[in-house]
């Protein structure tokens, strides 16, 4: 898929102008296992890059999700309430977590593109 950039914590951002979707990568969902619940942030709140913004509960454990860029939350994915498993089945598509409005696009450019992220994953094995 085109246009995502990834943080080293395995979040993705897909920007369209000043707005974008944030979620987790396929690698992250596989590491987590079956997702049973996602605690999403409140719409209207602003977070800085690196702030804890969400929590993913899998069968075994809870994992924190960190803001990959500065931004304001302008929407959350309510489909995750009833079907948290879409994080596993379609992490970059229907499994998105929340929508943001970014303030500093250079932070997006500083994230890894798909190729860089793939190479990064190889260093983790």
């Amino acid at each position, binding site marked *: 898929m085109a246009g995502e950039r990834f943080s080293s914590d395995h979040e993705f951002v897909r920007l369209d102008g000043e707005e974008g979707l944030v979620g987790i990568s396929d690698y992250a969902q596989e590491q987590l*296992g*079956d997702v*049973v*619940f996602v*605690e999403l942030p409140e719409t209207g709140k602003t977070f800085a890059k690196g702030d804890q913004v969400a*929590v993913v*509960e899998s*069968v*075994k*454990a*809870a994992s924190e999700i960190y803001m990959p860029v500065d931004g304001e939350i302008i929407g959350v994915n309510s489909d995750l*309430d009833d079907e*948290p498993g879409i994080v*596993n089945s379609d992490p970059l598509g229907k499994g998105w977590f929340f929508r943001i409005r970014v303030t500093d696009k250079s932070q997006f450019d500083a994230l890894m593109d798909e190729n860089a992220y793939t190479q990064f994953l190889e260093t983790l094995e």
Partner: protein
Amino acid sequence: MSKPACDNLLQTPLYGAHVAAGARMVPFAGYSMPVQYSEGIIAEHMWTRQSAGLFDVSHMGQAVLISKDRKHETVAAAFEKLVPADILNLVPGQQRYTQLLTPDGGIFDDLMVHRPANTEHSGGLFLIVNAARKTEDFSLIEAALDEGLELARRPENALLALQGPMAASVLSILDPGAETQRFMTARLTTLAEVECLVTRSGYTGEDGFEISVDAEDAEHLWQSLCDDERVKPIGLGARDSLRLEAGLCLYGHDIDETTSPVEAGLQWSVQKRRRESGGFPGASRILHELKDGPALKRIGLLLDGRQPAREGAQISTLDGQVIGNVTSGGFSPVLQRPIAMGYVKAAQANNDADLTITVRGKALPARVAPMPFVATNYYKP
């Protein structure tokens, strides 16, 4: 049987089979064990409830306590000094669940014990203890033996568990006697040309069997069972979610050296004869709690929504008074909601009571529920 791996983790005889099947291996009790295979924990959990799941539990500790005079009465009397169960009156082949106790009446470990079915093995007791405690358990037992007794560890034995509604049907193809083997009994038999000791018991709440075999035969038996399309290998992740739904304790979490069997709701495993005569460690506390009730009680909790509560979360009354802690918690694939176990003050341990559990600063609504959370299917025709 256990071989060191490069990161100092031991391997069971089935290590290669797990890796070949795509398992994600994790450290557990000093072993490299499969936490899940490719389909994931929830799928493995549901397969066990609907068909037959095969678990490698070879990391657990197997041993035989033997009296040199080959008399059941002698070995039973010796073991009864350590556990509160009635061992003396076990009939040949009968298995019981019990606990090794501390002098304060706390639980040192929980275990399964059976009297051999065959008279040629008279004077023995077969023990299966938790992997994380086996070294300590065997030391504790040995320290309590006089010269007429010995503890023979069986590190060369593997242990497989086949659990689920299809388990008996799967095994009976290899051995017709499995179909009608009684619950909580042990039998020596041959499966896929391999000599085995089979008990009808397990840790999932389902009908099932635990099969002890020589390490060198383990992989052949594992593959023979996996060849049946009703069988899939299942990892430790689903083993934990299955036992939680069944309301079964996990040592080191729901029970430990501070918890007595009465607090843990395990008084059913202290048979009447032992309640009357005592003669086990911590008897004064345990008999007192049996008579007057314990100060704390283990309870089951059902939560609303989907957010799980985990070990360590505080349990409170609706008006905010902290009354206990969660000791195990997770998501129930069958009930599709979070479930948990914990201890609260005995006066608050009432079914249907509304409580809250604090998770990341939020008070989640929870209700006290009887266990098992999901009905068990033990073979009791």
